[in-house]
């Protein structure tokens, strides 16, 4: 299945060092993958607090591992951005 993943602000800076290429559109996933597992694949949960959104709704941290992604989902990761 394919989803779209958007990294807001400087979330890209928190990607695991091993990830050298990241394509936001049409991200290929295995069936049944959770949002928590996807976060871990990127290395986010070990690196920083963040906000995850799925199809415009905030997914709380405690619900990340229960949120199974579906084909066509739009996922957004927001870093702990401050100020302005």
């Amino acid at each position, binding site marked *: 299945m394919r989803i779209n993943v958007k990294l*807001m*602000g*400087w979330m890209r800076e*928190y990607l695991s060092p091993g990830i050298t290429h990241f394509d936001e559109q049409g991200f290929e996933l295995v069936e049944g993958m959770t949002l928590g597992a996807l976060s871990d694949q990127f290395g986010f949960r070990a690196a920083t607090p963040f*906000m995850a959104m799925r199809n415009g709704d905030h997914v709380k*941290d405690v619900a990340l591992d229960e949120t199974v992604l579906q084909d066509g989902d739009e996922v957004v990761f927001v870093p702990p951005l*401050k*100020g302005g």
Partner: protein
Amino acid sequence: MGWQKNILRVNLTAGTCTNEPLNMLWAQQYLGSRGLATKYLMEEIDPKVDPLSPDNKLIIATGPLTGTIASTGGRWTAVTKGALTGAIAASNSGGQFGGELKMAGYDLIILEGRSPKPVYLYIENDNAQLLPADDLWGRSVWEIEPAIKNTHNDPLIRIASIGQAGEYGNRYACIVNDLHRAAGRSGVGAVMGSKQLKAIAVRGTKGVRPHDAAKFMSAVKIASEALAVNPGRKGMTADGTISMMDITGTVGALPTRNNRQVQFEGSDKLNAKTMKAPNENGHVNLIQNAACFACTIGCGRISHIDPKHFSVKDKPQYQHASGGLEYETAYALGSAVGVADMEAATYAGFLCNEYGMDPISFGGTLAAAMELFEIGAITEKETGGVKLNFGNAEALCLMAELAGKGEGFGRELGLGSKLLTAKYGHPDLSMAVKGQEFAAYDGRAMQGMGLGYATSNRGACHLRANPYASDFTTQEIAEKPEVVRSSQDLISAIDSSGLCLFTLHSGALPEHYALQLDGAIEGGWDLARFNETGERIWNLERQFNLAAGLTAADDTLPKRILEEPAPSGVAKGKVSELKAMLPEYYAQRGWTPDGKPTAETLKRLGLA
């Protein structure tokens, strides 16, 4: 050391400049800049004074780290009773002026009285004098900075001045330094104008000595290296604060059309990507980033406007490079007024710098006026024939000029949204706290920010609390009172140190501030003392406001944020839960249920 232990007192009524020693007991208790100047103001004026009367004082203050090599050590603060709010005002600015003033040998300048004629203050190290400003009055910041430098034949003079907005008493007039940095909020420029003081021009060559040079240099190295490797710092350098636009736009925390909406369909025309990309004419808005004195972040933007854009096509004087959009200006001159035009927002921002007015309060007031126009409370009769609908970019540009000069309907805009909406019978349409307009965050999606706005001592402000990480993680309110209270204290201390708050957003740890202070000044500084100093300053500001006549009833948000559910975004259907958070906030502060510090709290902080 760190402090220069020296104050310049300027009596504008008498035309005198005198030096006096800094009260070192107060310096140890209130540190410098925002905190120390507030202590002097509290001691020297009646908080009930009319902000624009000669009895109000204006204090220009540096901190102990201002003028040092500590990263961002160039900050200064204007402290007074605010013309916009009637509350304590402490407006912080960067640029080069603060470091120059400190190196001229001054911790504070206390400006009192009112000059019978327009003057400017000229300082060259120990030589301080008031000089006639008759030929500068009526001219813009951009005209008088080069004029003063030419007069003294010294291009290295640093200048903080007011434009026409401050002269005519625009309630949100600011003090602009180095052409496009500003002590922006609460109307500190209107106070300066009321004193007939046009500018402060400084040349300082004395340097600043730390208390323990080796310890200080070691601490600066640790703090600077933390910034160097931090992802947030890298983002600030690369994209500036405007990168927030995509975040709030996506989450639904972007105030749009006077907070009628929380997402703006044109936000992608106002973001970091658009700022860097060629437009249809091949023009790129952003030229480069810029840093203030001693700063290793460089969040500032230097921009120029497309010469073919309607705003400047017949005005070559606005086609040069100058201070570009930050996130707050992009909101206030963009989504707040429903205008999705980066060039128009940049032009209106240029005018705010040139005439010396706060773009946040100008945009917020114009947004309120646009809503008044759309509901028919004002018409083209009041606006001088201008169709003041949301989204009208031409009206935005015209009104920025008129509000800056105090002409036509612009003079009414200069009242600020609170007085303007009250005048036309719709006070609920002012999106402000204590009379000061919202910054670029909606208090429904960001519950902590809503509490931060409501409890801010200077009115709605994004720089008084640091609930961002919490608000972008959860909408649940349980942790908000503690997050807001503790960050208010920390920021009060940072602002009083002479460093920039954005270090906190760029990888600095709280202990880094205390570490650097411990090298720069005597007295023994650690994080616990630093935080307690911040708490003391916050409570002192609160005492000023209570003495000025403000009450717990002023710790509130507009009806729209408390009663109208957010129409979209992560907080769709929700309102601010301020009333549930406020009692816990007061309790954590050691305040009574009606928002007054208890005797025990005051005693603990040395304020009794």
